[in-house]
């Protein structure tokens, strides 16, 4: 990874870190980001359904998966939101869940609005 590579502070994904994890393979990074688009949306929807059923175990499992995948793509703010939700679900503190879900959705919107797939290319060329 070239040392001059930089990621804007406001970026919801640390592109430099993602590319490092993909060992500089830009095609892989783009493929992964394309998967993020579909999987995160599906995970969040699944999380909402699990909340509707007040199923804390299921919620914790989904939030855990989201935490793992977001950490792998270096979406650290989303990772923190997912970790908080996992913790709430494990403690069965579902009262605080709507606020956390709102936060998670907000973070997810930031990622979507950042047009994440071209991010990898921009990071590579920076």
């Amino acid at each position, binding site marked *: 990874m070239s040392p001059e590579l930089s990621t804007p502070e406001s970026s919801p994904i640390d592109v430099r*870190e993602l590319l*490092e*994890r*993909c*060992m500089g*393979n830009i095609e*892989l990074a783009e*493929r*992964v980001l394309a*998967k*993020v688009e579909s*999987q995160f949306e599906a995970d969040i929807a699944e999380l909402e359904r699990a909340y509707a059923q007040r199923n804390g175990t299921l919620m914790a*499992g989904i939030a*855990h*998966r989201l*935490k*793992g*995948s977001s*950490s*792998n*793509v*270096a979406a650290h703010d989303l990772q923190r939101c997912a970790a908080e939700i996992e913790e709430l679900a494990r403690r069965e503190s579902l009262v605080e869940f709507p606020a956390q879900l709102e936060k998670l959705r907000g973070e997810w919107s930031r990622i979507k609005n950042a047009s994440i797939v071209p991010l990898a290319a921009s990071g590579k060329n920076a």
Partner: protein
Amino acid sequence: MRVLVAEDDAISAEILANILEKFGYEVTVVNDGQKAFEMIRTGRYRMVVSDWEMPNTNGLELCRQIRARQGSGYIYLILLTSHGGVNNVVRGLNAGADDFLTKPYQPEELRVRLRTGERILSLESRDIMIFALAKLAEARDQDTGLHLERMREYCRILATDLSETEKYRDVIDGEYIQLLYLTSPLHDIGKVGVPDNVLLKPGRLTKEEFEIMKRHTIIGGNTLQAAAGMNPEAKFLSMAWDIAMTHHERYDGTGYPRGLAGEAIPLSGRITALADVYDALTSDRVYKPAYSHETSRAIILEGRGTQFDPDVVDAFVRCENLFLAARRLLVEGSAELENPADELEEALLASPT
């Protein structure tokens, strides 16, 4: 080298598989622990990288299942998970994982941990060398066929059965069974020191010749004791020494070389004694034809409490069908059972009762 990845998150799996391929591994990805265990049972994988949270069978259960099986090769397992913290590391390692890596990880860190795994797996060449040494010693004996292969299976069957009894539950664990399987083929290694005119004599030995033959226990025992002295931490050497020295001792104290009795004879020696005799009885020798299982069984039962440890004889009776299945497989089939428990079970189902 093949690596099996068990990961239910498609994003993490994609990144991991690509990293591993870049490192030169041949990668297979499955998305739950149950499928992972099925793949492991094929015997094609010795290195596994598994997530913790997965549907059906999670990573911890997968670790336990892998460690509970009595397969022929060690499986090196790295748990890769978002569950951080010392407590989770301890839980993971206690369940049988060899290493633990927290997401997000750096590819280079994963690479060095995989290399550690490869080094550990390469130690299994030690096991192969031990068996090769035993086969070399056996090669002088002309009519033993797959004696070593059968005998170690019989030892494993007996030890596994005993490990499930109250008396031996805290004595025999998975490691003990593996060590017994590994070292029992060395029981007769001292025969390399027995002259041809005695070892290869067709027919009964004279009293003097029998005295010479009996020395194989001491020759083997002394050799292994010297090796154990150089490496006292190596449990397999001390067990191998026990077995070589004591597999001709008798429970009533009339055996050789030292006339040990009862539980003064190490358990590994008491188990090996029965396994060795059963195989000798059921095999052709220059001085006798192979006896049937029923005849051999009767002889062993007659030796309960005199020649053999009653507990070991009782274990033999409880799992005689497994003995029959192992004998059939290792006379007609391959020299090693890839998945012994499964293959014996299948053979049992196929066998007439």
